[in-house]
């Protein structure tokens, strides 16, 4: 019967002319379609941001290379950072949250479907605005330029004297616009989780995915709010002649740093907590065991959420704060390692003694565990203020945060793609291509980012467009670039897999992984109304209860 329903649905959509189908997608308020739009938007920007990274790596392949000019190089690293954080990581995680949260908690849609659509289009147009700077950054005369002030845009680089034209304003306004989009989605996620749960879905029975996204959404307010405020101040400075960050008139460049990093550091946790959410769903299913230490996981997540709000100035050790501030921020930064460590042990505890299935989603999750641990360890190294004085602003830092974002978040995201793609499209992703993607990406990642630590330790500063030969950086930089190319090829395999499997993949059925959360109880892809009748749950694993009526979880919880 479920395949009948699917056939009806595909017949409905494929019979219409494409203009009408496009119109339906543009005007949709369905959380599943918006989720997919978010993900597609992010994938588009992932390719663009990836090309920018490749341009930088080609430039740094050899000393005295002149593949691009220094000015273009500055634009590339600014656009790469801004794109990857605001228009890849945030939308893709929002996309998954949008798609999955209502399904997991047994809701018909998000709490505010139209706000949801509005938020998505704000993000999309924010991205468009950022890239329009390539054309319109200089105004109507001459060729345009993209912003080149770095993704954290320290004052006074953003003042009129050093950033003429409108390139920085495109950056500012793009972030304000997409920031309002992020807040809208965060409001939606929280309201959905608090007010739209199906009967029986108490907070203690929610899938961890919902808990972690709830925490993430709560953090978005405290993160995007300050960023928006700081960007508004920058607008006042640049357009109305204000003096917030104008040191000539008594303003403070340090204040911008504080405001930016009050956003910037917790932002990392806004991105990594949804990655934790993916792991907390995938690892139990592929270990055939319920998650180990559910309440502790929730507690540790909240703890990360709170502590991460008080660590921002570890990005600023080198500006010369007093020793109390240095000690405070060093200690709080190290403290974040404790709840994070609890989570890693809980995932290991889930795997321990389980019947582990090494399917592609699980491979990416295991990769995450190793790499995120290593990224955390270099993080602890950098949290020690004296060590940080040596290596701040070097390639060691670049390697560290790419280890978090690529080795951690991106790996978890790939796992999520392989795990939920069958639900979203009704087709399985190809396992062989998936394993090829995993191994290629793993090799490319380690070649690129393991080795990148070393030029940093040897003193190579970040954001330089070229370097002198004879400092021992040449071979390493060359290999790092090769690693970047291998990752690029792996991404091509992934994209090919997404496209081929969409047309030729094996039919998934409702529940290809024998999983336990509510989204697997509906057809793949789910019908527009999600659940024909509102489900009722009695435990954390409603589908386990259903499949094993003789031994339901509800008996033990």
């Amino acid at each position, binding site marked *: *019967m*479920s395949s*009948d*329903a699917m056939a009806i649905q595909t017949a409905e959509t494929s019979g219409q002319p494409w203009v009408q189908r496009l119109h339906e997608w543009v005007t949709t308020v369905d959380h599943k379609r918006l989720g997919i739009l978010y993900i597609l938007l992010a994938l588009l920007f992932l390719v663009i941001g990836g090309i920018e990274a490749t341009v930088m790596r080609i430039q740094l392949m050899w000393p005295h290379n002149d593949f691009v000019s220094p000015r273009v190089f500055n634009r590339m690293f600014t656009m790469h950072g801004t794109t990857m954080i605001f228009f890849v990581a945030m939308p893709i995680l929002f996309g998954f949250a949008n798609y999955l949260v209502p399904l997991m908690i*047994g809701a018909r849609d998000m*709490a*505010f479907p139209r*706000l949801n659509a509005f938020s998505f289009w704000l993000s999309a147009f924010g991205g468009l605005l950022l890239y329009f700077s390539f054309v319109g950054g200089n105004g109507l005369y001459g060729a345009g330029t993209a912003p080149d002030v770095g993704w954290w845009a320290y004052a006074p680089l953003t003042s009129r004297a050093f950033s003429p034209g409108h390139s920085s304003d495109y950056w500012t306004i793009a972030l304000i616009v997409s920031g309002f989009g992020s*807040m809208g989605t*965060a*409001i*939606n996620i*929280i*309201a*959905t989780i*608090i*007010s*739209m*749960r199906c*009967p029986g879905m108490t907070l203690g029975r929610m899938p961890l995915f919902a808990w972690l996204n709830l925490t993430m*959404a709560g953090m*978005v*307010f*405290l993160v*995007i*709010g*300050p960023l*928006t*405020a*700081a960007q*508004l*101040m920058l607008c*006042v*400075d640049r357009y*109305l*002649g*204000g*003096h*917030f960050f104008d040191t000539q*008139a*008594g*303003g*403070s460049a340090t*204040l911008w740093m504080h*405001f930016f990093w009050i956003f910037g550091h917790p932002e990392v946790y806004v991105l990594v907590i949804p990655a934790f959410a993916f792991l907390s769903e995938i690892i139990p299913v592929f270990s055939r065991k319920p998650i180990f230490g559910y309440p502790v996981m929730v507690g540790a997540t909240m703890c990360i959420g709170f502590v991460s709000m008080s660590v921002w100035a570890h990005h600023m050790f080198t500006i010369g704060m007093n020793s109390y501030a240095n000690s405070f921020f060093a200690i709080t930064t190290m403290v974040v390692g404790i709840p994070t460590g609890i989570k890693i042990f809980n995932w290991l505890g889930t795997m321990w003694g389980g019947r582990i299935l090494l399917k592609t989603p699980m491979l990416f999750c295991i990769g995450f565990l190793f790499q995120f641990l290593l990224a955390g360890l270099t993080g602890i190294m950098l949290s020690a203020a004296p060590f940080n004085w040596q290596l701040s602003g070097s390639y060691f830092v670049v390697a560290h945060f790419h280890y978090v974002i690529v080795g951690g978040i991106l790996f978890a995201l790939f796992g999520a793609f392989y795990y939920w793609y069958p639900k979203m499209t009704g087709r399985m992703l190809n396992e062989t291509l998936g394993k090829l993607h995993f191994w290629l990406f793993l090799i490319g990642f380690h070649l690129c980012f393991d080795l990148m630590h070393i030029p940093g330790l040897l003193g190579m500063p970040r954001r330089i467009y070229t370097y002198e030969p004879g400092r021992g950086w040449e071979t390493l930089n060359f290999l790092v670039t090769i690693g970047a190319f291998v990752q690029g090829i792996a991404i091509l395999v992934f994209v090919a897999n997404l496209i081929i499997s969409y047309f030729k993949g094996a039919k998934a059925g*409702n529940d290809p992984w024998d999983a336990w959360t*509510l989204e697997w*109880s*509906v*057809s793949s892809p789910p*019908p527009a109304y999600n*659940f*024909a*009748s509102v*489900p*009722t*749950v009695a435990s954390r694993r*409603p589908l386990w*209860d*259903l499949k094993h009526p003789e031994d339901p979880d509800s008996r033990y919880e």
Partner: protein
Amino acid sequence: MSAITTPLPQTPVAWKLPYRGRVGMTCLIFAESAIFTIFVVAYLFYVGKSLSGPTPGEVLETPIFFTICLLSSSLTIHLAGKFLERGRRGAFLLLWLFTIVLGALFLYGTGKEWYRLIYEHGLTISTNLFGTTYYSLVGLHATHVTAGLVMLSIVFLFGLAGRVGPEQSARVDVLSLYWHFVDAVWVVVFTVVYVLGR
């Protein structure tokens, strides 16, 4: 179609969750508070750091009357909501209009103060750090008052058309939550700008 329905137990349970509008507005208030906090921090950080005059002590006058207007509008909107809940539409509309008038009076007060500062004391947003932080913070708040007034007026027009009844009471409450927030922010802004900042 039966297979795509969820064949999960359908036992009825007592199930009441908070109203989503209230939750959403609470979240918005959190986000807005973060924005205001940053502006307040900037204001306090730059108190007394202007390199040239005029200074707050020289030019600011405490707007007591207009503050009373805004704060009492919190009371009128609360009472309006209560009347709506009990189905007394006439009293609701009257108090709602009263809220709008009080809010508009406050906005007029801000405008008057700005006019005085600009034309009598030559203080603009680009004059010095005080001007920059003062106009930004007070202006941000005034923007919120304006947005609130627009929403209040829309409800008022719907009310005149007879479309606002007790069944909309929960939605009207969401708007009054926002209005209370705008008032609460003014308490903070007032304290920072007119008490601590001088």
